């Protein structure tokens, strides 16, 4: 199935959990925040929230700024 992550279409296994998807991308779950279909997920939800076909994800983190 297909999800859209940070503006890019990505093919992933059906029903993949957010936590597994983050790990697959090589990211540390504690350093990112996930917005899925317009809703911000808490860190606790990463392990239970399954992605749907067509889900729109935004993975956001802190960067340098003034």
């Amino acid at each position: 199935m297909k999800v859209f992550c940070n503006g890019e279409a990505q093919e992933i296994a059906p029903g993949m959990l957010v936590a597994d998807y983050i790990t697959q991308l090589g990211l540390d779950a504690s350093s990112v925040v996930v917005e899925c279909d317009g809703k911000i997920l808490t860190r606790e939800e990463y392990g239970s929230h399954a992605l749907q076909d067509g889900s729109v994800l935004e993975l956001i983190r802190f960067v340098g700024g003034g």
Partner: protein
Amino acid sequence: MLTIAGRKFRSRLFGGTGKFSSPEVMKEALAASGCEMVTVALRRVDLNNPADDIMSVLDRDRYLFLPNTSGARDAGEAIRLARLARASGGGEWLKLEVTPDPRTLLPDPIETFKATEELVREGFKVLPYINADPILALRLQDAGAVAVMPLGSPIGTNQGVLTRFQIEIIIAQAQVPVIVDAGLGAPSHVAEAMEMGADAVLVNTAIAVAGDPVRMARAFAMAVEAGRIAYEAGLGAVSKDAAPSSPEDGLGFLR
């Protein structure tokens, strides 16, 4: 000692974390500045560079994070960024920034006010970045802002305190701390702001782009301290007319 929203700060210099040539230089410059609060921004993860993580070099025990809403063009975008910052573990502190015009990066007062009202309701400690408007500063204070951050000059311009007259009024009127932010390009600029009675200053660009950011951070720290001591010591009055420093009496032997 400076207190904002119940939290005490020994240093009256706040640091930014943008534009440094490397994370190592940033870390060393922030240490040299002595600052205890640093701003950070929120952006999309670069999926091609997942290891690029500022959090790995910044010690959260040493620095209070002040996430900003840079990039927001209206209240809705700023509120979304604020909620993401809190969900990222950024805490309740927030530098609210709403800049609809990328050319001037001047803050939108109406959208900033609207976002302040909502974010205060949601429990954020809001520090709004504003043009140096004394009336707006009071309105934001009444809306629950824990400090106000009037600009010295536009972001990244290093032009210094061009808004002196208005900032003097803000300082005279505000019950919440006044943090002069943006455009402070040289240690003399922050010394000027502190001599005027600003409670603190925020500096990013001038330190980050200096030839030697670590030494420049130290220069800014010294200027902030000098300006604060001068303010507390009480500056002499400014006069148009000259007044001799040496005695006028006792010159009879000359004429």
